[in-house]
């Protein structure tokens, strides 16, 4: 079944090849673009991102993409931010200074805590590897996690994490040392994964599939796949 067009935003940050490969493997109708006009007209948007927060915001700004993204989100169409792409959705980041984000979701991006050397909860940073994502107790039934068992193992690769003002934004979280990492988030039509669904084998592919089939209000179709 072909779905509506997904627009993958290319703003020169990180590699889009794997996100595109995953979309192809899922037989999704997608388009990668740098064009603000295409972004404005998208049915749904994937915002990937690897690297540092500030240069990424700078590139979105230089590419004239911030206003189209803001308008898109306001219109209620679904957006999925991946890794740094998810962090950019928040108000501010403390990565190498203090920087403004897209501010679609109130909250800030902070560095992971290593933990005390004496405690056995000390962890290495970056957080690289597969970790278990548990669902929040009041997790809604319709989300990108639909149809997946809980917990799921997914692939993380990051040093910073988002801390939403409203804890209900967090649909799935993982423990890493003393950190509770917001791993799957949803704020109305805005979705985010701190991990890399495109690198998380079958579980990750299912998340991308679910996103491609969400309706504008953030719920999935029921039945009829």
């Amino acid at each position: 079944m072909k779905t509506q067009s997904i627009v993958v935003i290319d703003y020169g940050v990180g590699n889009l090849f794997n996100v595109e490969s995953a979309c192809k493997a899922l037989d999704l109708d997608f388009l990668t673009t740098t064009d603000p006009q295409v972004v404005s007209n998208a049915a749904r948007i994937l915002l990937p991102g690897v690297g540092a927060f500030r240069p990424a915001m700078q590139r979105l700004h230089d590419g004239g993409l911030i206003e189209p993204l803001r308008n898109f989100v306001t219109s209620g169409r679904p957006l999925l931010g991946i890794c740094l792409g998810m962090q950019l959705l928040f108000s501010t980041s403390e990565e190498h200074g203090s920087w403004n984000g897209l501010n679609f979701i109130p909250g800030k991006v902070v560095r992971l805590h290593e933990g005390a050397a004496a405690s056995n909860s000390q962890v290495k940073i970056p957080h690289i590897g597969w970790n278990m994502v548990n669902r929040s107790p009041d997790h809604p039934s319709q989300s990108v996690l639909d149809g997946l068992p809980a917990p799921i193992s997914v692939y993380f690769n990051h040093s910073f994490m988002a801390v939403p003002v409203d804890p209900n934004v967090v649909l799935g979280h993982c423990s890493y040392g003393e950190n509770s990492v917001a791993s799957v988030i949803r704020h109305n039509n805005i979705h985010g994964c701190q991990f890399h669904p495109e690198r998380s084998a079958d579980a990750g592919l299912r998340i991308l599939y679910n996103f491609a089939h969400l309706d504008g209000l953030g719920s999935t179709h029921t039945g009829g796949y």
Partner: protein
Amino acid sequence: MGCCTRVIARLDIKGPNVIKGLQFEGHRVLGTADALATAYYRAGIDEIIYQDTVASLYQRSNIAELIKRAATGIFVPIAVGGGLRSIEDMRNVLRAGADKVILNTGAVKSPSLIDAGAREFGSQCIVCSIETARINGEYKVWVDYGREVSSLDPVSWAQEVVNRGAGEIIINSLMHDGMGEGFDLDIISQIAEKVSVPVVASGGAGKREHCLDVLRSTSANAVVVGSMFHYHYLQNSTQALPQQPSHLLGGEIDQGNFDFIKDGYGGDRAIMVQPTSVQEVKTFLSENGIVVRTAISSPLPDHRVSE
């Protein structure tokens, strides 16, 4: 709680093929990289390393095409190393679908390459491989795929690469490579205790107990397996490698590969490697208290099957 411990497959690449040697010498072709990588992905591997074995030696890297092909059907992280000497080299393999780049020779010869790579692509995608072996009783860092020794001490070099921005370290013990006699626990534990980034143990896995040993007696966060998986999946190639054209297992291989394995590397050494599947390793680790990733099976809604 930390991450799941990763079980990583390493493919030593020459042209389109996977090769394997002993102590980085005497390499034989085992099959195509495409076929083995696909088999490992389907078997639930956590990550795959592509190590270009000749790029560093001949100062070229043309592994990008291979990665591009792999990345279209493999949805676990791919790390690529061999002959990466510039930001452009790194960009090439990252654009082809690699998630991480592995630096060794390039970083030893020009340490600022690590800083530049971390600045450009982020620490999370810069991995430093430290190839090490003792010479006159002292551990040293080796370069050029184990052909040349440097003056660097592996432990202080490890600390330096982290300070320069490496996000992960692979410790590759040259004398243990391909031997199947276990990891070099000494140097791995020395380094793993000194650095703040994840450490990957490589070289020497011959049976699943070796993987458990290194995870228990050092603070390594991942194990690399080569021969154990290669031999398992090649021996079971009719199931494991359905896409492997049969002629590739004959014609292009430089000598009768299966006979070669069966005879113990041409008969001059006993093979210590026990062919083992990805699942057998993971189950064994899990039974012994190591947290590993459990893959979920066929999660996509399939409209051909009624739900």
